C-alpha cells in the first residue's frame, strides 16, 4: 500500500526573494512520473505540504497554474520552524512535497466573465496561480482587474510580475500601499485595499471576485463589494487553517463539519458565511 505521508522530492530550480522575509521557489520534480501524476490531478487553487527534512511540513497553496507543466511554484514567509528552514535552502537543494490536495477554483465555469482579483500582502500567491491561469487562457475571459495592496512597497510580492501585468493592455491592475508605506518613486496608489477598491469601483455585472488577504482586510472589503452590488455567490476566497496531514485524517483544520483540507481551501462567500467562525 502506498504511503500517503511520503512526499515527492523536488529540486529548487529558482529562488526569488520577494520581500526581506518572503521567498518564492520554482521547483522541479526529481521523478518525471511524479510530475506527470501531479499535473494529471492539479487544478488551480489546490495546496500541498512542503517540507524541509528534519523540520516538518508547511501548508502552502501552489502558486503556479496548471497551464505551466514543467514546474510548480510556491511563495512563503519565514515564520515558523519549517518555513525558516526552507528559506535557508539554496538553488539546487531538495525539498519534500505532497499534493495536490483540496478543491479548486471553478474557473471553467467563469468563461466569458469579468474576473476581479483582490489581494493583500502575502495573500497574493494563492491568487497568483489563478491570475496566471486566466492570463494563460486570456481569450476565454472578459475583463481582468487586479487590486493588490501591501503595508509598504517592500512588502509587495511578485514585483516583476506586477510590472509585466501593468504593461499588458488586457489587464487592469491597481497596486496600493498603506499610508506611510510608500517610497519616493512609488507611482501606485496610497490607501487601504477596501478604500482603493471603492475608488476603482469595478462593475458587478457578469463578474467573479476573488479575495484573499488578512482577516482585517477581508472584513472591510466585503461591505465595499456589497456596496458595489456583488452578491456573495459571486465572491470566492481561499482559507488556511493549521494542518498536518492535508488528507482529512489528522483532525484539526475543520471549520464546523467542513474540512478545509478536503472541502476547501476554496470557498464561495455564501458557503463560507454559513460556516461557524472557526477559521
Amino acid at each position: 500500500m502506498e504511503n500517503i505521508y511520503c512526499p515527492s522530492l523536488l529540486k529548487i530550480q529558482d529562488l526569488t526573494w520577494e520581500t526581506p522575509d518572503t521567498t518564492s521557489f520554482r521547483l522541479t520534480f526529481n521523478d518525471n512520473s511524479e510530475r506527470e501524476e501531479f499535473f494529471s490531478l492539479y487544478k488551480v487553487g489546490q495546496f500541498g505540504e512542503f517540507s524541509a527534512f528534519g523540520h516538518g511540513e508547511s501548508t502552502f497553496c501552489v502558486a503556479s497554474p496548471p497551464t505551466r507543466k514543467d514546474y510548480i511554484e510556491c511563495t512563503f514567509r519565514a515564520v515558523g520552524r519549517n518555513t525558516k528552514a526552507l528559506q535557508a535552502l539554496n538553488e539546487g537543494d531538495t525539498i519534500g512535497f505532497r499534493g495536490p490536495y483540496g478543491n479548486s477554483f471553478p474557473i471553467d465555469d467563469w468563461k466569458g466573465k469579468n474576473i476581479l482579483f483582490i489581494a493583500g500582502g502575502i495573500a497574493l500567491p494563492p491568487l497568483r496561480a489563478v491570475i496566471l491561469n486566466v492570463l494563460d487562457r486570456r481569450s476565454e475571459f472578459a475583463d481582468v482587474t487586479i487590486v493588490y495592496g501591501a503595508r509598504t512597497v517592500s512588502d509587495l510580492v511578485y514585483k516583476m510580475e506586477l510590472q509585466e501585468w501593468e504593461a499588458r493592455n488586457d489587464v487592469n491592475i491597481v497596486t496600493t500601499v498603506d499610508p506611510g508605506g510608500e517610497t519616493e518613486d512609488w507611482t501606485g496608489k496610497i490607501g487601504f485595499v477596501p478604500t482603493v477598491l471603492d475608488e476603482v469601483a469595478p462593475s458587478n455585472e457578469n463578474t467573479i471576485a476573488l479575495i484573499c488577504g488578512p482577516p482585517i482586510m477581508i472584513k472591510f472589503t466585503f461591505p465595499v463589494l456589497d456596496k458595489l452590488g456583488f452578491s456573495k455567490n459571486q465572491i470566492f476566497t481561499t482559507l488556511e487553517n493549521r494542518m498536518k496531514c492535508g488528507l482529512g485524517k489528522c483532525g484539526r483544520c475543520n471549520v464546523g463539519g467542513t474540512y478545509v483540507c478536503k472541502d476547501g481551501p476554496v470557498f464561495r462567500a455564501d458557503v463560507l458565511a454559513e460556516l461557524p467562525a472557526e477559521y
Partner: protein
Amino acid sequence: MVISEADTTKIVNSLRVRAKELLESGEVKVIIGYGEGYTKGKAVPVFITDPGKTDQLIFDARCVNNLSMYLKHAEIKAMGKVGIVAKGCDARAINVLILESQFKREDIFILGVVCEGVGDPIEEQCKSCVANTPPVYDELFGEPIENQGWNDETFAKIEELESMTQSELWNFWVKEFDRCIKCYACREACPMCTCTRCITDKNQPQWVPTSPHSDGNYHWNLTRAFHLVGRCVGCNSCERACPMDIPLSLVNWKLIKAVHDEYEFIAGMDAETAPPLATYTEGEETDFIK
C-alpha cells in the same frame, strides 16, 4: 485537633451563606468552589454565578482538586472578580500566583477553609501539611488548627529511593516515565504552570521532544519538575491528574525538600518572599563548584 462533623456542617453552611451574599452584593461575579460530582463519591469544581445556587457548595475530604489553577484561565478572568474556596494548599498556590503577578490580590476574594487533609485514605502530602489553616484569606471558615508540619512518612519513599545506586534510580525513573503518554494533564492541573506557551510547545528550537518515547518522556518530566522549583506547593494535583499513575509527587517533594534544606524556603506561605531561584544572598558557597 480534629474537625468534627458538626463543625464541617457549620463550615459548609456558612460558606453557602457568605457565597450567596457575595454574589448578591455583586462583590464577586463567580464563586469557584466544590460541588457534588457526576460520579458518585466525587467532588468537582463548580462555578456559581447565581446567588440562588450556592447550596451546591460542599466541603469535605473529597474536595481534592486545587481550584486555584482556574484563576489563570482566560474564561475565568473574563468573568470579573472571583470568589474562591481555598484550602491551605490552594491558598499557598494563590500566594505564589500573586507573587508572580498572574493577578492582583484585590481581584479575588478568598474564602479560606480550614482543612485537615483530603482523600480517603488521607493523601500522603496532607500528612505533611504546613497550611492546614490557609496562610491567606479574606474570610476564614472553621476554627484555625495547628499545622501538621512535615512528617517523616512523606519523605520515606524519597529516602528509600535516595539509598539506591545511581543506575538503579535511573532504571526506576526511566521505567516510570515510560508510561507517560504526553497528555500534559500534569501541566494543566498544576496551578503553577502559567506559561502561555509551554516550553514543550516551543519548537525553535525544539527543546523538549514532543514524542512520547523514552527520551521525550524523561526530558519532559525532568523539565516539568525543575520549572516548579521553589514554586511547587506540593498539592499533588499533577500526580492525581496523571492517568498513567506516574509518581510525580516524589520528584516534586524531593525538590521541595531540597529548596528547604538549602534556602529554608517553603513556597506560598506569603506573597512577598521571592522564591529562592529568583534571588540570592551574598557569601553563599557551594562545594560542587571548584
